[in-house]
């Protein structure tokens, strides 16, 4: 089934065996509330690694039922992160979530060569948004991890966009490669690399989606602009996925969707052995739930 609304993930997860979320240093209200809600909805099983006293206190303050959560006591943040990662590696959980830990410490635990979750992949951040005035979901990246992806990193992000679409039931997603212009201007790296990636897809070196670029944002999301400019790619005006050439472009798009257009979204980190949730404290309650659900869909 193709998902066109993020809330449909909840319905699908309700019909599947519950995936086990392991939250690293989950002692803050944000993490506890989000995981508690997800567990209460019955879409996941929540395992919180952190200081048991702190977790229970927070639950009491927010009138939450602790019995919905499995708590693994660990009084130290770094050691809790390491333990959460180890539990994933030992098969005791299906995906990871960040708690009150700083992002760099969380990422370091994932990236640790001996004990981490890497398997030769490239870590990329993938967002799935539900823009109010677009006719479908938009999957895009990287807005948070790779500042200026090189060609290989862009290929990895493109593959992850397509993979995410597949998990959401979008069989042959249309991927727009964003650049300042649809012209192939060799001196502008975003244009040049988009052309290269599009050609690679044409040659079957990137599979599972229809990839077109370079394209300006207008051509990616607006059919009328494409008609005016004489672009007849099926991707134009009907993109499922957008590859951003750099973090500034991606991050600005993300924040514009959230803050100006009040869109909801879910986001995960891909490229490790399991999906990793990396919510920001600024995210809405619903977006945190969507992020957990998205990771569970892909775990």
């Amino acid at each position, binding site marked *: 089934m193709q998902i066109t609304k993020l809330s449909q993930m909840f319905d699908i997860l309700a019909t599947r065996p519950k995936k086990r979320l392991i939250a690293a240093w989950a002692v803050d209200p944000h993490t506890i509330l989000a995981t508690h809600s997800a567990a209460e909805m019955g879409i996941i099983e929540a395992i919180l690694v952190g200081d048991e006293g702190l977790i229970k206190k927070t639950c009491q303050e927010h009138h939450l039922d602790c019995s919905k959560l499995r708590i693994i006591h660990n009084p130290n943040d770094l050691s809790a992160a390491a333990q959460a990662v180890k539990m994933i590696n030992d098969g005791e959980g299906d995906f990871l979530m960040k708690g009150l830990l700083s992002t760099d410490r969380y990422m370091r635990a994932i990236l640790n060569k001996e004990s981490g979750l890497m398997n030769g992949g490239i870590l990329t951040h993938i967002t799935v948004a539900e823009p109010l005035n677009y006719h479908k979901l938009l999957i895009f990246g990287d807005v948070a991890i790779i500042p200026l992806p090189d060609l290989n990193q862009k290929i990895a992000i493109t593959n992850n966009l397509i993979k995410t679409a597949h998990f959401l039931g979008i069989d042959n997603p249309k991927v727009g490669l964003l650049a300042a212009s649809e*012209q192939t201007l*060799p001196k502008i790296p975003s244009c040049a690399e988009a*052309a*290269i990636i*599009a*050609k690679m897809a044409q*040659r079957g*070196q990137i599979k599972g989606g229809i990839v077109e670029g370079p394209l300006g944002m207008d051509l990616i999301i607006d059919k009328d602009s494409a008609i005016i400019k004489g672009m007849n790619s099926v991707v134009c005006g009907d993109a499922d996925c957008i590859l951003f050439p750099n973090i500034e472009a991606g991050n600005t798009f993300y924040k514009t969707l959230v803050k100006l257009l009040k869109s909801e979204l879910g986001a995960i980190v891909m490229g490790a052995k399991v999906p990793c949730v990396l919510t920001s404290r600024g995210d809405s309650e619903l977006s945190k739930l969507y992020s957990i659900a998205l990771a569970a869909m892909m775990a």
Partner: protein
Amino acid sequence: MIDKLVQIAEKAKSLGRKTRIAVAAAEDTNTLGAISRAIKEGFIQAILIGNQAKIMALLLQTDIAPEAYEIIDIPDEAAAAKEAVRMVRSGEADVLMKGLVGTDKFLKAVLDKEKGLLPPKAVMSYTCALELPKHHKLLFISDTAVLTNPDLDQKIAMINYSVAMARRFGITKPKVALITATEKISSALPVTLEYALLCKMAERGQIKNCEIDGPLDIFLACDPNSLEIKGVQSSLNGDADILIFPNLESANSFYKGLMLFGGGELAGLICGTTKPVVVMSRSESENSKYYCLALACVMVEDK
């Protein structure tokens, strides 16, 4: 449509004009052989510049009376090249041809910024049309002689020149194959990245009048069966008209191998100059030299 080299000469004859050829240091039998054949066929007029005594002696060996030629006595080869270039530049001749002058001295005169034949910032390149006994049509290839390691802009110029030549032969939308060892795009083979760019530039209308695909190897460019066997999709359908090579070594080896082992013949031309420039290697066959001359006549802009 021209698909045999002999048709180039027929086309040159059909133009109904005598193209004026200025030959720099016309002091070798190779050059004069091709020139006298073209005069006999009636499509050129020759201005022979060089050591008059030597030229006269050589002309006695041809079966055309020396009176049929205009001869200008300039014994120094560099000076002869300069005078030939001057005549073409001033419109006293239509085509420049190299005789027994060193290629470096000849090109120095062509490339001279004030008095030469290359417009500012223009790329000089070499395209030739190759006829092969076992192939159903001509193949235009570049660059076999001038650019050693063309960059992206130079490759675009090579494509444009080859397309212009193919169109002059009646191929309205020539199929351009960008040749390397594989059809896959990989940063390990940087030319494949350039090729991907060029394809997209053509798709976006930034390179006109042609269909481009690449990277492709020779099999995938020129043999539909290979496409089928390998399961590769190509907009050229294995029927390329133009082959663009990544560098001089590959293009040069490709054509020389085919000339030597495959019975190929060719007609080639320097491109990018304001008027056609014929530079022939002494090792080329009599026929190829004649075709080069005919090609230059065909490529002269209509007045």
